[in-house]
């Protein structure tokens, strides 16, 4: 439940951030979440999922108030010389990559700063 709540919050933040400030919102917010969250692996998963969802929802909103995505996706794919559905797929992959690399870098830095403890014998 808490995980769902956290995800929803981050999705909204990323969506609003993208809408207001552009694509930079994804790596910046991902870094902030990774910095704030205690658990690295959870933070990583959280931002990756939220990034994909937030951009997916924005796309859905565009289609809701505008026109269908599929024909434009096809036309854009041909114009850019990529495979069909390429732009749509890339539009979901790019925020995932931005989020993952930003969060991964911050988590890595945090881990470097944390002293290593010896394993506790069972």
């Amino acid at each position: 439940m808490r995980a769902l709540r956290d995800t929803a919050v981050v999705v909204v933040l990323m969506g609003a951030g993208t809408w207001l400030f552009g694509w930079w919102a994804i790596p910046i917010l991902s870094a902030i979440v990774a910095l704030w969250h205690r658990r690295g692996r959870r933070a990583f998963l959280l931002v990756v999922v939220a990034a994909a969802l937030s951009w997916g929802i924005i796309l859905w909103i565009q289609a809701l108030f505008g026109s269908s995505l599929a024909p434009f996706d096809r036309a854009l794919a041909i114009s850019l010389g990529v495979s069909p559905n390429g732009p749509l797929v890339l539009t979901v992959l790019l925020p995932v990559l931005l989020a993952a690399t930003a969060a991964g870098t911050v988590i890595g830095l945090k881990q470097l700063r944390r002293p290593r403890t010896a394993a506790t014998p069972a």
Partner: protein
Amino acid sequence: MAARHVLLGVSAAALAATLYASACGIGPVPPLGRLLDPANGAWAAVGAADLPSRATADMPALGNDVEVRYDDRGVPHIFAQSEMDAYRALGYVVARDRLFQLDLQTRAASGRLSEMVGGVARFADEETRQLGMPRAALAKWRSMAVDDMGRRILDAYADGVNAYMETMSERSWPVEYRILDARPERWEPVNSLHLFMRMSNILTYIPSEFDRIAARAKVGRAAAEAIFPLNSLVQEPIQPNEATPWFDTSAIAPPGTPDTSALVRTLASALRPWPFDENRRHFASNNWAVAPRRTKNGYALLAGDPHLELSLPSIWYEAHLVVPGVLDVYGVTIPGAPGIILGFNRDVAWSFTNTGADVLDFFQETVDDSVLPKQYRVDDSWKPVQREVEIIRDNRGKVIAVDTLLFTHRGPLTRRGSTWLSMRWIPLEDPLDATGFVQAAKAKSARAYLDSMARYWPAPAQNMIAADRGGSIAIRSTGRFPFRGYGGDGLTIRDGTSSANDWRGDWPIEQYPQAFDPPQGYLASANQQPLDARLKRSYLGSGDAAEVWRALRINELLRADSLVTPDAMRRYQTDPGSERADLWMPALLEAAGSRPTDRELPENGAASLGDAPSPLGKAGAVLASWDRRYTKDNHQAVLFERTLSNVTRLLWDELEDSTGSRVATPSGDVTLALLAQPRNAWWDVRATPNAIEDRNAVLARALSAAYDSLVAQLGEPSPERWRWDRVRPARISHLLRLRGFSAESVGVQGGFGTLNPSAGGGFGSSWRMVVELGPNVRAWGTYPGGQSGNPASSRYRDRIKTWSDGELDSLTVPAVAADLTNPRHTLRLRPRDN
């Protein structure tokens, strides 16, 4: 420890790479972040696909509220209280729908395309600047007084464009900016003049001198003048008389000894071939008008369809402007042009075709320094050469070219080989502005319209046709036409050291080609030579700018129809008949049925003497089954076109250079004349020195080769495999040639030589309009595209099917805003205090 460092390093490197690709792009790939951002990138086009149902915007400089209502075809009907407000609103709505097109066309016209698309456009920009076009537009702008009507219109239009741009966030930029990683720039009033200059370039930069020089270097002067004659060999002039059409049957001088004089040799080798597309002569435009006594409903009718490069979005944008008691004009404008260019008001309708007048001459200058001249000689004195330095930048602001341009009092001075030529060109010395469109739009009669345009229209010279509610029809070739001081033509490069060779003023309007309410009851122009060659008038142009077939066809149709209806006018615009095919077919069928003469050696023993039909026989059978109509589903036209292409190659082989490219190509009327001269030496093929071919031999060879090549390409002839609209579709390309945003295969009726030469390329009927001038004006129109420049919009290409089917939409022309009930969108523009 090491593992954590490695993972951190990998993450950081991946982050850096992703950020770089997202922010800066890699190579030709634009910044991915800006491109794929679903809220602010390319996908924003989807969200903005349709205009809001209601909108309001504030505009500085607006005098009063303006109401804009869009009908169900996306046409904005602008209701304003003053003319200037109407043009402000026009600028606004055009920017709203076509901002990228406005920007791109302006940069191309002003030689700054590289600043948007990068160094790939460098040569285009250099050529634009070398022709002196941006310089002339700027000079015109600076010469216009602030309260000059022409200047006020440009300012008003710019106000509107910029008012729209102020409402834009980056999110609402057209998608093309994302793909190019570019940004829109503020609209300057002078941009409209750049656009007009570009129109003039497209329609009047016709250096026919080069064709003759190139031909002289190959076949001598007499032959060159015979195959590039001063007058078209088929006459169906715009200014009608009872003795047309007529055909000049004089013998055509055979190829002679190459002209090896120094000037010809130098220029022929140095002239960059004008990018000649022999097909261009088939295009250009049509217009015609019919007087009430020859129409079924008893009202004057007018039809117009300009032929231009087909693009998405279309070069045209439909609009309607109303200022009560002052202005009520509907038609098409070009984004960037403040005014309705082709259209109608409640009393008059009008349309244009290109005159193809020769308003461009070259002068050989004697200079003081053959490398970088500072002076040039005229009569007994030296005059200084003017210099200007042009800097061309790319889309990153980096300087990619620095050119020093030179000018004489005649115009741009350029070196061709070791010869310096200056160029005098009417658009450079008298650039067009919008005054003519604006003033003439208020005309009450056909004559008043033409007279108004004659006052304000220097170039590009247009055959302007008009019809009015009073029943009058009229046509006038309008523009500045120079008198050559030496009494000669404009096809010879003149000696610049003698001022006697300079132009001696312009034709008076009374001598312009024109006709008012002719006895025949109709008028038509399709870019043919405007005046009958037998009239002794000063040289206007050589008439080879366009093929004569469309003129022949429309006149034949109108002669035969004495009860013309609006629907007939529509059908004529895509009429599949071809005078060209009618005239050629007898000779081709004769050749297909002929055997090789004794004077020709059989090729590889392939003479059709055996039992099996030869390719020639099969080809003849295909052609014989054809009704010579370029319908969509015919399967013979493709063979005919391939054959004629082969004939052109074989016939004009004397004009080939060492690479096998033709240095110049005579027009179709010359080839037609040679059909009647079967033993003329032009028919002899140089590649067969042991044979002397005649007409039938060449036609037979061309036909056989065409058949074989088509079978190899498409398979055996069949209605499916050789279907015309599939083999030669029209192509409507996006402005940036982005394939996904183009319509690459549009089947059309028509072809070369027909009234609708839209097949097989990216050029054709860019707007079609029919107007009936009755008590209430009725009008129909369409163009191949849509009102919106947004590829995600339902109005981006919604009219293509109508256009390809040869249909027209009924145009809505409300007199007041309230007449347009249930508008699709409304826009209210309000004055904003600065």
